[in-house]
């Protein structure tokens, strides 16, 4: 009952004209940017972040959330129409979405994606409304030891479970933690690694790192990828309403995808890509239509889209209630909140309940807007994809430049973005995923602070992390995950060696 009352109050906040407008703008811009191939939700949020500095915290968060799930939805449009995932999590949608488009069923695939995203989004919102207060209540008992352990678990989970080599992922997290120490130490006031540059005394701005690593880095990659013009195929978009049989076949997969996505999204460090992949794998096992998977099965579009969008909503649970982001995009949300002086954690629900419940209610409105916006706009997105990329990317570069420059009206920030952009590109070349780096950077200062507090309270006894029940359990789970990371790395290597042996034969 209390949850319903709080949700009702949140709905009133979300329905305020300003918040409604920013939700609409966020969803629209997010979808618009997400549609562009190679530009994910991370880059979309990075580009929008400087604009939100001029807004009220609730409006800003509602707009960022709108951009986030708008971009996640937009990513599926590029996946279905061009076989180029707009976001990593929508890569699973390519498997059946693109074959559907090739069969002339692009309209139905896009419609299914919109309906599944809506269903997943609503399921995720319900899970968040029910689960977040309970988790926040539990987290109120947390001390510095438990916080340190939960941050450690989140970071290791994000790097060990994410795509790519887990050892490289953990290295990226640690590098991010190190970069987070640049600037003035808040405890002692001493400058660390500023090299005498006054602009670095406050540390490196989160937006600069995000814009550089994700915005600029992804742009450099996407120029060549989009130069081929491989997506200029002729597809019939006019027919998009599914038949009765198709409606029937997508209903159960949407429910299953929403359930799996809601659960996985709520775990720190997993994210939508894992949610989509697991949901697709499960559906492939249980679906009566499993033989069609990979050849244009409607279930193959419905399941990952529902899982992806429900995970997008439930990813806010650990982010807001524990202050531990499950993904790099969520790390940006934490960064944005901190810029307003709002510290995410269990107190958020007590101290800023309007903001929290306003955000939850905005998910409902945002998902309805996504549906209303996207079904009639399918034609517009298709036309947008026909604009040559050569006109797009110089414009995006300018948006990045202006966004970074507007932070402090200082060109030093633009130079720093250039450096991080190049570093981001080189990281991709060397097969280092940049997302864990950002997580480490955001959580580094918090982790250091909790470590110092825990050591002070325990009078220098480091075993306190193992002897306290909650932190001990969390550290044990972290150790298991690390063991899994090593096992996974060995397994990946064996698979590669086997593959190369078969190729040589």
């Amino acid at each position: 009952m209390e949850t319903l009352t709080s949700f009702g109050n949140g709905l009133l906040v979300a329905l305020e004209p300003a918040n409604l407008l920013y939700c609409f703008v966020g969803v629209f811009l997010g979808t618009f940017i997400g549609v562009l191939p190679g530009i994910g939700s991370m880059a979309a949020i990075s580009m929008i972040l400087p604009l939100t500095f001029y807004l009220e915290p609730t409006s800003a968060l509602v707009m960022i959330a709108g951009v986030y799930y708008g971009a996640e939805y937009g990513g599926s449009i590029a996946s279905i129409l061009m076989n180029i995932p707009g976001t990593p999590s929508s890569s699973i949608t390519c498997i059946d979405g693109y074959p559907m488009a090739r069969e002339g069923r692009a309209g139905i695939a896009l419609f299914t994606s919109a309906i599944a995203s809506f269903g997943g989004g609503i399921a995720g919102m319900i899970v968040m409304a029910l689960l977040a207060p309970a988790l926040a209540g539990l987290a109120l008992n947390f001390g510095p030891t438990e916080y340190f352990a939960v941050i450690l678990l989140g970071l290791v989970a994000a790097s060990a479970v994410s795509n790519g080599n887990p050892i490289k992922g953990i290295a990226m997290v640690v590098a991010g933690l190190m970069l987070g120490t640049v600037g003035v130490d808040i405890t002692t006031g001493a400058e660390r690694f500023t090299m005498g540059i006054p602009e670095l005394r406050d540390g490196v701005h989160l937006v600069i790192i995000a814009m550089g690593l994700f915005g600029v880095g992804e742009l450099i990659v996407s120029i060549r990828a989009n130069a081929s013009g491989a997506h200029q195929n002729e597809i019939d978009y006019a027919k998009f309403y599914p038949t009765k049989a198709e409606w029937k076949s997508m209903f159960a997969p949407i429910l299953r995808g929403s359930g799996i996505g809601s659960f996985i999204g709520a775990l720190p460090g997993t994210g939508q890509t894992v949610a989509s992949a697991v949901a697709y794998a499960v559906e492939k096992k249980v679906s009566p239509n499993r033989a069609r998977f990979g050849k244009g099965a409607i279930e193959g579009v419905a399941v990952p889209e529902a899982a992806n969008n429900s995970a997008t909503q439930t990813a806010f649970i650990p982010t807001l209630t524990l202050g531990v982001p499950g993904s790099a995009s969520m790390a940006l949300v934490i960064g944005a909140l901190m810029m307003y002086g709002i510290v995410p954690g269990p107190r958020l629900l007590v101290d800023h309940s309007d903001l929290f419940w306003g955000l939850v209610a905005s998910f409902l409105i945002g998902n309805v807007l996504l549906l209303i916006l996207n079904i009639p706009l399918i034609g517009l997105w298709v036309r947008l994809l026909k604009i040559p990329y050569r006109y797009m990317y110089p414009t995006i570069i300018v948006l990045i430049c202006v966004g970074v420059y507007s932070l402090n009206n200082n060109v030093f920030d633009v130079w720093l973005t250039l450096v991080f952009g190049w570093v981001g590109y080189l990281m991709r070349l060397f097969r280092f995923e940049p997302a864990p780096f950002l997580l480490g950077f955001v959580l580094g200062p918090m982790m250091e602070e909790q470590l110092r507090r825990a050591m002070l309270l325990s009078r220098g006894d480091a075993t306190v992390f193992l002897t306290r029940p909650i932190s001990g359990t969390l550290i044990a789970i972290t150790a298991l995950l690390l063991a899994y990371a090593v096992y996974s790395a060995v397994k990946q290597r064996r698979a590669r060696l086997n593959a190369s042996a078969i190729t040589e034969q």
Partner: protein
Amino acid sequence: MKQLLSRPWRSAEKDGAPHPYLAALGGAGFLVLSLIFIVGGFELGLGSPRRLGTGAFPVITGIILAILSLAVIAADLRDTPDTVIPDWISFFAIGGALAVFALTVGRIGLVPGVFLTVVTASLPDRSLGFPGKFILGAGVALACWGLFIGVIGLPFDAFMGF
């Protein structure tokens, strides 16, 4: 040498296979970074276990990163990652565009700065001729003027030094 510069991910001996030493450069870069933080952290002071000093966290993370870097280097040398051919033209054009923006926006203003940034960014694209690049640059510059200065009211100068 010429081949290394143009296709540095591929070995000179065996076309198609990534050069093992170059593939390990990523891990080596992280190793150097970790050493900088370890040395810097020691200079800042480690403090005591009860009161961790300013340099303690950088040293702890630096040591962990150094160990991980060695593991990454060993792994990349043992079996090199998949071949990736770098796109240096886009790399330098996009970097150049950011540099042009940084050099011009405070000197000649937002509108000319954006114009030059767009023209620089579009240089690697040969399908768009110079008249097209100039028209695109002018269009984006005018749109930025209208949006960022006119509508949002950001405190930028549209033109400077003219």
